């Protein structure tokens, strides 16, 4: 577990200012094989998790990052001011809708929630959990929203595919209204009508 490559990778991830993607690590360490780098990363993650120390190596928002072990926050907050990432039930609901249904307009979010969501949307934009992806090509050209890289970081998600699966809606003979919408361009298959890619990787 203490090969030179492991040490180099650990050092890179440790000093990086945000999560480092496997691709970027491979690019930085061009003299090493990609497979060896990937194997080292898995080993390192297993090692840190196994030793139950103060922090773990985790895969988040498409990259690798050292993060404190959950459960120790009580001690951390004794010395640092927390940025208080508090989310109300309505923020979480709105965020969930945007995460699962992106790209989505405000009107669509409001239809699903049954309430005005302007203020919640604005606060999610300010917290950088949500971003404006552009405008929808329908009359009125409403803004369309999606979740950001910060959303994945905040919620400790590797990518959008790691979102918990929605509870199945059973016994519905018709497709719910919103399923007729374009599919969420997850992963490689980003061929949706919305320009550009979702901002992951």
């Amino acid at each position, binding site marked *: 577990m203490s090969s030179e490559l492991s040490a180099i990778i650990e050092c890179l991830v440790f000093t990086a200012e945000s999560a480092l993607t496997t691709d970027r690590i491979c690019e930085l360490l061009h003299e090493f094989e990609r497979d060896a780098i990937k194997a080292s990363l898995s080993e390192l993650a297993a090692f840190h998790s196994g030793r139950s120390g103060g922090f773990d190596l985790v895969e988040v928002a498409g990259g690798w990052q050292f993060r404190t072990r959950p459960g120790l926050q009580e001690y951390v907050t004794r010395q640092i001011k927390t*940025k208080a990432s508090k989310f109300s039930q309505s923020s979480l609901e709105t965020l969930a809708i945007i995460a699962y249904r992106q790209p989505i307009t405000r009107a669509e979010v409001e239809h699903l929630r049954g309430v005005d969501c302007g203020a919640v949307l604005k606060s999610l934009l300010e917290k950088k959990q949500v971003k404006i992806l552009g405008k929808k090509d329908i009359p009125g050209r409403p803004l369309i929203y999606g979740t950001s890289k910060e959303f994945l970081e905040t919620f400790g998600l590797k990518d959008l595919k790691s979102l918990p699966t929605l509870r199945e809606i059973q016994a519905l003979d018709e497709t*719910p209204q919103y399923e007729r919408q374009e599919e969420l361009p997850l992963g490689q298959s980003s061929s949706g009508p919305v320009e550009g890619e979702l901002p992951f990787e």
Partner: protein
Amino acid sequence: MSSEGPHHLREEALPLLDGFQEQYSVHLDKFDGPMDLLLHLIKKNELDIYDIPIAVITRQYLEYIKLMKHLNLEVAGDFLVMAATLLQIKSRQLLPVDEQEEAEEVETDPRTELMRRLLEYQQYKEAGMVIGARALLGREVYVRTCSDPDLVMARNAEGPLEVSLFDLVDAFRVMLARIPAEHFHDVAADETFSIADCINEILALLQEQETVQFDELVKDEFTRERVIVTFLALLELCRLKLVRIFQGSEHGSIWFVPAVAGEPAPA
């Protein structure tokens, strides 16, 4: 809020609201909107979401809104829109079924759309709770904040740029707020009649007269833009179930009336 609230309630005896009477303030704050309230009522009464007894649920829903008013709480418009929707579904159930239409009516139970919305809403409500229960960065989990000295020293000019559209617009907004108005003239092309303005106008008109004709709305300013905006405003009002639209003959005039006016008299 006034201290007489709870007593007042007990006297009024709103028996279906036992849940609200204890710690009513907590409950009142808890509902995030009409969908949330409906789900709560369904769960509390152990009702089947696939076969909602619309009369029961509508009565409880309206009593809840009444309660909010008793407590002098502001009842958000969204709650009223849902009240109108429930009443509309109920009235459709009360209407005798036309034999010719019967075949179609079987398929389109007026409750279907509501049920679908509730189920979908419930999914996202649950998903929100699931993601909210994760170990959140900055709440349960932290990253290293201290920058590495080696990195701090080095300056960088060629990395990718990291900034969001919202930041850009916000920077613009902050700057505009700072500079005196005369320095600045807005050249944006959208200094026009908005859909929101139009909705307001229609609602105002409907308070004065029972029916309104589409042509009447656009006769003063018969431009392409005005017609489109008016039409979109009408569609929106229709979606919100605030108006009903009629057309006498093909390509005839479009008339509309307030949606609640057509409800049957109290049973």
